[in-house]
């Protein structure tokens, strides 16, 4: 009983442990998996990320040169970032903004030409 009273008094004078949220934002630690980003210019459309993604939210079309990700089904596990051979995927520490509609990240890149075409 006395212990808790002591605690209550201490808490009365201590700094608040909560924040006034929209005005005081905590921010994230280094290495937090917040949002997925792609540098589409370096993507070689190898489809490794599509194959390895556990939630199967990435679709890569190597003919059209498109890379799309259903942002709403991504679970931010970071597997695609680990497996991408050209390291064009990255995670930033700011988490994705709330949205009222389903979002898809769609990117259009230049598909890699076949060797024969490239030689012509």
């Amino acid at each position, binding site marked *: 009983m006395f212990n808790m009273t002591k605690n209550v008094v201490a808490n009365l004078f201590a700094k608040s442990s909560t924040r006034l949220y929209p005005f005081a934002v905590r921010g994230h630690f280094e290495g937090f998996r917040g949002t997925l980003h792609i540098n589409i210019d370096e993507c070689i459309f190898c489809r490794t990320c599509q194959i390895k993604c556990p939630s199967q939210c990435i679709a890569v079309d190597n003919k059209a040169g498109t890379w799309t990700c259903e942002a709403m089904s991504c679970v931010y596990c970071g*597997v695609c970032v680990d497996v991408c051979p050209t390291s064009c995927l990255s995670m930033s520490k700011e988490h994705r903004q709330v949205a009222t509609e389903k979002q898809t990240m769609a990117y259009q890149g230049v598909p890699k030409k076949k060797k024969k075409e490239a030689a012509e």
Partner: protein
Amino acid sequence: MARTILPFGPQHPVLPEPLHLKLTIEDEIVVEALPTLGYVHRGLEKLCEVRDFNQMVQIVERVCGICSCLHALCYCEGIEQIMGVEVPRRAKYLRTIWGELHRVHSHLLWLGLFADAFGFESLFMQFWRVRERIMDIMEATCGNRVVVSVNVVGGVRRDLSPEQCQWIEQQLIISEKEIRQLQTTILNDYTVKKRCCGKGVLTKEQAYQLGAVGPMLRGSGWAQDARQTGYAAFGELGFEPIVEYDGDSYARCAVRFRETLQSFDIVRLAIARMPAGETAANVEGANEDDTPRIISGNRGGIMQSYNRDKHHSITAAPPPDLDIPAGSLAAKVKGKPDGEAVTRVEQPRGELMYYLKGVGSKNMDRVRIRTPTFANIPPLLAILPGCELADVPVIVLSIDPCISCTER
């Protein structure tokens, strides 16, 4: 007095989890309790047929949010056994550290919810404030607060730098101090004792016969803990389970409280003894012979081996092999799991068991998960009859139900 049937849950103000109990009440006294499971069934086991065995790591993590790391650990250990992958020692220590941090945050969560169940709101907030520090450690070291996603087949994906280790130790010192301040309240307070002591008593024999696991079993006097089997780095850390003998809600609460403090010690010891080196094995074409093998995980599954006097001897701190450079963090595992394995790890709620069967294709043939709450429901049904209706929430919470785990 006529009997009344009272539905308790799945949505109930005091339940953190959607458990449904059909309580037969006679004069405010429970005479019978019948559970209904399946409210949050998601069919995660079935997913092993369409996702490959590496993707399943992320899926089994989502069986349960609170102990995600331990689900992945159990699964990865199973696959590693089947494929004969040797996990680097540093990875084993890292798994231990994150696993124990998960136990700390789960127990703190539970201690808070338990306080909330008997109406001690301020204690609930105090525990959750401490828990926030542990969540911060998780976010800073793993990249996420809850579903940490650090385990992969063959090792772990992240490493701890010396600065991070130091920071974790500092945070643990502060958290431990804060928890110790709450010790007298949660363990000695008159109100807490009044609500918990002698409520929902599970005798030692009942606990054994009904197959209770985890704090439920240890609260009834059995010194059984899957960590004694020495998975991850526990074989080298010298672990002894915490036991209480009364078998009531209070004993279970005391077990969890003391385990929280014990986990702090384990994390510190693991950080101190963590060898340098790689964090993930690089496996190419593992498992050449194609005869299916049955490997019973974690050596010896019978009660007798959990003799209280027998514990792992504390090995001297091994010389850290400092000159091995830290290798790639993402394990490259080639080859397909072919064979069967049973693995057991100690989740915060008790013993978790995975049965894995691979048939040499990239999809597993069977992933069977037995979660601790599933094992703890029969004992719960045995202790509910005879208690007052007002005590039902406290008793149900004292088993630390995790229904999302149970129904997968």
